[in-house]
Protein backbone atom coordinates (compact mmCIF):
# COMPACT_ATOMS: atom_id res chain seq x y z
CA UNK A 1 0.00 0.00 0.00
CA UNK A 2 2.00 2.97 -1.31
CA UNK A 3 -0.51 5.69 -0.31
CA UNK A 4 -0.08 8.85 -2.39
CA UNK A 5 2.73 8.87 -4.94
CA UNK A 6 3.92 11.97 -6.76
CA UNK A 7 6.18 12.09 -9.78
CA UNK A 8 8.60 13.61 -10.45
CA UNK A 9 10.30 14.55 -7.17
CA UNK A 10 12.28 17.41 -8.66
CA UNK A 11 12.10 19.37 -11.91
CA UNK A 12 13.72 22.43 -13.38
CA UNK A 13 11.90 24.21 -16.19
CA UNK A 14 12.66 27.20 -18.32
CA UNK A 15 10.10 29.98 -18.61
CA UNK A 16 7.47 29.05 -21.17
CA UNK A 17 8.00 25.29 -21.01
CA UNK A 18 5.16 22.96 -20.11
CA UNK A 19 4.99 19.96 -17.86
CA UNK A 20 2.59 17.62 -16.07
CA UNK A 21 2.82 16.49 -12.47
CA UNK A 22 1.32 13.11 -11.74
CA UNK A 23 -0.39 12.06 -8.53
CA UNK A 24 -1.53 8.51 -7.93
CA UNK A 25 -3.28 7.06 -4.89
CA UNK A 26 -4.08 3.45 -4.14
CA UNK A 27 -6.50 4.01 -1.24
CA UNK A 28 -9.65 4.30 -3.40
CA UNK A 29 -10.15 7.87 -2.18
CA UNK A 30 -12.83 9.99 -3.79
CA UNK A 31 -11.28 13.40 -3.17
CA UNK A 32 -7.93 14.59 -4.50
CA UNK A 33 -6.15 17.92 -4.18
CA UNK A 34 -3.20 19.90 -5.47
CA UNK A 35 -1.57 22.40 -3.11
CA UNK A 36 1.46 24.60 -3.50
CA UNK A 37 3.67 25.52 -0.57
CA UNK A 38 5.70 28.71 -0.47
CA UNK A 39 7.62 30.20 2.48
CA UNK A 40 5.31 32.17 4.75
CA UNK A 41 2.25 31.31 2.66
CA UNK A 42 1.33 27.94 4.03
CA UNK A 43 -0.44 25.48 1.76
CA UNK A 44 -2.59 27.08 -0.91
CA UNK A 45 -5.15 25.05 -2.82
CA UNK A 46 -4.73 25.11 -6.60
CA UNK A 47 -7.43 22.71 -7.81
CA UNK A 48 -9.31 19.81 -6.35
CA UNK A 49 -11.58 16.99 -7.41
CA UNK A 50 -14.50 15.41 -5.58
CA UNK A 51 -14.72 12.47 -7.93
CA UNK A 52 -13.67 10.94 -11.23
CA UNK A 53 -14.33 13.31 -14.12
CA UNK A 54 -14.93 16.36 -11.90
CA UNK A 55 -12.60 19.20 -10.95
CA UNK A 56 -12.97 22.55 -9.22
CA UNK A 57 -10.86 25.65 -8.72
CA UNK A 58 -9.13 26.38 -5.45
CA UNK A 59 -7.57 29.61 -4.19
CA UNK A 60 -4.79 29.98 -6.80
CA UNK A 61 -5.87 28.20 -10.02
CA UNK A 62 -4.45 30.60 -12.60
CA UNK A 63 -1.73 29.13 -14.81
CA UNK A 64 -2.66 25.53 -13.95
CA UNK A 65 -4.99 22.92 -15.39
CA UNK A 66 -5.99 19.55 -13.95
CA UNK A 67 -7.63 16.35 -15.05
CA UNK A 68 -9.13 13.40 -13.20
CA UNK A 69 -9.83 10.82 -15.89
CA UNK A 70 -9.31 7.91 -13.50
CA UNK A 71 -10.27 7.81 -9.84
CA UNK A 72 -6.75 6.99 -8.71
CA UNK A 73 -4.94 9.70 -10.71
CA UNK A 74 -4.95 13.47 -10.55
CA UNK A 75 -2.79 15.36 -13.04
CA UNK A 76 -1.59 18.95 -12.66
CA UNK A 77 -0.47 20.71 -15.82
CA UNK A 78 1.51 23.87 -16.38
CA UNK A 79 1.03 24.99 -19.98
CA UNK A 80 3.56 27.84 -19.94
CA UNK A 81 5.68 27.88 -16.81
CA UNK A 82 6.56 31.17 -15.11
CA UNK A 83 9.12 31.90 -12.36
CA UNK A 84 6.21 32.67 -10.00
CA UNK A 85 5.31 28.98 -10.21
CA UNK A 86 8.56 27.98 -8.53
CA UNK A 87 7.28 26.12 -5.48
CA UNK A 88 6.84 22.80 -3.75
CA UNK A 89 3.71 21.05 -4.97
CA UNK A 90 1.83 18.58 -2.81
CA UNK A 91 -0.89 16.23 -3.86
CA UNK A 92 -3.32 14.91 -1.26
CA UNK A 93 -6.30 12.61 -1.15
CA UNK A 94 -9.02 11.66 1.30
CA UNK A 95 -12.07 9.46 1.50
CA UNK A 96 -15.71 10.58 1.59
CA UNK A 97 -16.64 12.18 4.90
CA UNK A 98 -17.77 9.73 7.50
CA UNK A 99 -20.75 11.71 8.78
CA UNK A 100 -18.78 13.17 11.66
CA UNK A 101 -16.79 15.59 9.55
CA UNK A 102 -14.01 15.52 7.04
CA UNK A 103 -11.69 12.59 6.83
CA UNK A 104 -7.96 13.39 7.07
CA UNK A 105 -5.81 14.33 4.10
CA UNK A 106 -3.07 11.94 3.03
CA UNK A 107 -0.21 13.79 1.37
CA UNK A 108 2.38 12.71 -1.17
CA UNK A 109 6.05 13.51 -0.67
CA UNK A 110 5.93 16.60 -2.86
CA UNK A 111 7.48 17.83 -6.11
CA UNK A 112 10.04 20.61 -5.96
CA UNK A 113 9.69 22.71 -9.12
CA UNK A 114 12.05 25.49 -10.15
CA UNK A 115 11.27 27.74 -13.11
CA UNK A 116 14.18 29.81 -14.37
Amino acid at each position, binding site marked *: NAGVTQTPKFRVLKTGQSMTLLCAQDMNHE*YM*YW*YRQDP*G*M*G*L*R*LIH*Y*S*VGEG*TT*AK*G*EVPDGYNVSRLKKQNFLLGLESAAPSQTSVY*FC*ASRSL*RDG*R*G*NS*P*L*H*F*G*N*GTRLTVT
Partner: protein
Amino acid sequence: GQQVMQIPQYQHVQEGEDFTTYCNSSTTLSNIQWYKQRPGGHPVFLIQLVKSGEVKKQKRLTFQFGEAKKNSSLHITATQTTDVGTYFCAGRANAGGTSYGKLTFGQGTILTVHP
Protein backbone atom coordinates in the same frame (compact mmCIF):
# COMPACT_ATOMS: atom_id res chain seq x y z
CA GLY B 1 -13.63 33.75 0.41
CA GLN B 2 -12.81 31.88 3.54
CA GLN B 3 -9.57 32.88 5.26
CA VAL B 4 -7.73 31.01 7.98
CA MET B 5 -5.11 32.99 9.86
CA GLN B 6 -2.52 31.33 12.06
CA ILE B 7 -0.19 32.95 14.58
CA PRO B 8 2.63 33.18 15.36
CA GLN B 9 4.51 32.54 12.13
CA TYR B 10 7.63 31.48 14.04
CA GLN B 11 8.27 30.31 17.57
CA HIS B 12 11.64 29.52 19.09
CA VAL B 13 11.63 27.79 22.48
CA GLN B 14 14.07 26.11 24.81
CA GLU B 15 13.49 22.42 25.31
CA GLY B 16 11.06 21.98 28.16
CA GLU B 17 9.15 25.22 27.53
CA ASP B 18 5.54 25.23 26.43
CA PHE B 19 4.33 26.24 22.97
CA THR B 20 0.97 27.42 21.62
CA THR B 21 -0.21 28.22 18.11
CA TYR B 22 -3.54 29.87 17.33
CA CYS B 23 -5.83 29.56 14.35
CA ASN B 24 -8.64 32.01 13.47
CA SER B 25 -11.17 31.73 10.67
CA SER B 26 -13.14 34.52 9.00
CA THR B 27 -16.14 32.19 8.80
CA THR B 28 -17.72 29.55 11.01
CA LEU B 29 -16.08 26.19 10.48
CA SER B 30 -17.69 22.81 10.16
CA ASN B 31 -14.57 21.23 11.60
CA ILE B 32 -10.86 21.89 11.96
CA GLN B 33 -7.88 19.63 11.43
CA TRP B 34 -4.28 19.96 12.59
CA TYR B 35 -1.23 18.74 10.69
CA LYS B 36 2.51 18.56 11.44
CA GLN B 37 5.20 18.85 8.79
CA ARG B 38 8.75 17.87 9.70
CA PRO B 39 11.54 19.76 7.92
CA GLY B 40 11.84 18.43 4.37
CA GLY B 41 8.74 16.27 4.79
CA HIS B 42 5.07 16.38 3.96
CA PRO B 43 2.16 17.34 6.25
CA VAL B 44 0.89 14.54 8.45
CA PHE B 45 -2.56 14.53 10.04
CA LEU B 46 -2.63 14.93 13.83
CA ILE B 47 -6.24 15.36 14.86
CA GLN B 48 -9.69 16.66 13.94
CA LEU B 49 -12.11 18.69 16.06
CA VAL B 50 -15.78 18.85 15.19
CA LYS B 51 -17.85 20.00 18.19
CA SER B 52 -18.10 23.50 19.60
CA GLY B 53 -15.80 23.86 22.63
CA GLU B 54 -14.18 20.47 22.02
CA VAL B 55 -10.88 19.68 23.71
CA LYS B 56 -8.72 16.71 22.76
CA LYS B 57 -5.37 15.55 24.07
CA GLN B 58 -2.59 13.49 22.56
CA LYS B 59 0.11 12.97 25.19
CA ARG B 60 1.71 16.42 25.56
CA LEU B 61 -0.47 18.02 22.84
CA THR B 62 -3.80 19.69 23.68
CA PHE B 63 -6.16 20.83 20.93
CA GLN B 64 -9.13 23.17 21.45
CA PHE B 65 -12.00 24.26 19.21
CA GLY B 66 -13.69 27.54 20.11
CA GLU B 67 -17.29 27.83 21.21
CA ALA B 68 -18.16 29.80 18.07
CA LYS B 69 -16.25 27.33 15.89
CA LYS B 70 -14.16 30.12 14.41
CA ASN B 71 -10.91 29.56 16.27
CA SER B 72 -8.70 26.78 17.50
CA SER B 73 -5.42 26.28 19.33
CA LEU B 74 -2.70 23.69 19.72
CA HIS B 75 -0.70 23.67 22.94
CA ILE B 76 2.41 21.56 23.51
CA THR B 77 3.55 21.07 27.09
CA ALA B 78 7.27 20.69 27.83
CA THR B 79 8.53 20.72 24.25
CA GLN B 80 11.08 18.21 23.05
CA THR B 81 13.45 18.37 20.08
CA THR B 82 11.21 15.86 18.31
CA ASP B 83 8.44 18.51 18.25
CA VAL B 84 10.38 20.58 15.70
CA GLY B 85 8.42 21.29 12.53
CA THR B 86 5.62 23.35 11.07
CA TYR B 87 2.14 23.04 12.53
CA PHE B 88 -0.83 23.78 10.29
CA CYS B 89 -4.50 24.14 10.99
CA ALA B 90 -7.00 23.47 8.19
CA GLY B 91 -10.68 24.28 8.27
CA ARG B 92 -13.77 23.53 6.23
CA ALA B 93 -16.54 26.11 6.09
CA ASN B 94 -20.22 25.32 6.39
CA ALA B 95 -21.05 25.78 2.72
CA GLY B 96 -22.87 23.97 -0.02
CA GLY B 97 -22.01 22.78 -3.50
CA THR B 98 -18.60 21.31 -4.21
CA SER B 99 -17.08 23.57 -1.56
CA TYR B 100 -17.73 20.80 0.93
CA GLY B 101 -14.56 19.31 -0.48
CA LYS B 102 -12.39 22.33 0.28
CA LEU B 103 -10.00 22.53 3.19
CA THR B 104 -8.33 25.89 3.73
CA PHE B 105 -4.97 25.88 5.49
CA GLY B 106 -3.52 28.48 7.79
CA GLN B 107 -0.03 29.81 7.04
CA GLY B 108 1.51 27.50 9.62
CA THR B 109 3.69 28.06 12.69
CA ILE B 110 7.32 27.03 12.42
CA LEU B 111 8.53 25.66 15.75
CA THR B 112 12.21 25.35 16.60
CA VAL B 113 13.32 23.80 19.86
CA HIS B 114 16.77 24.51 21.29
CA PRO B 115 18.20 21.66 23.39
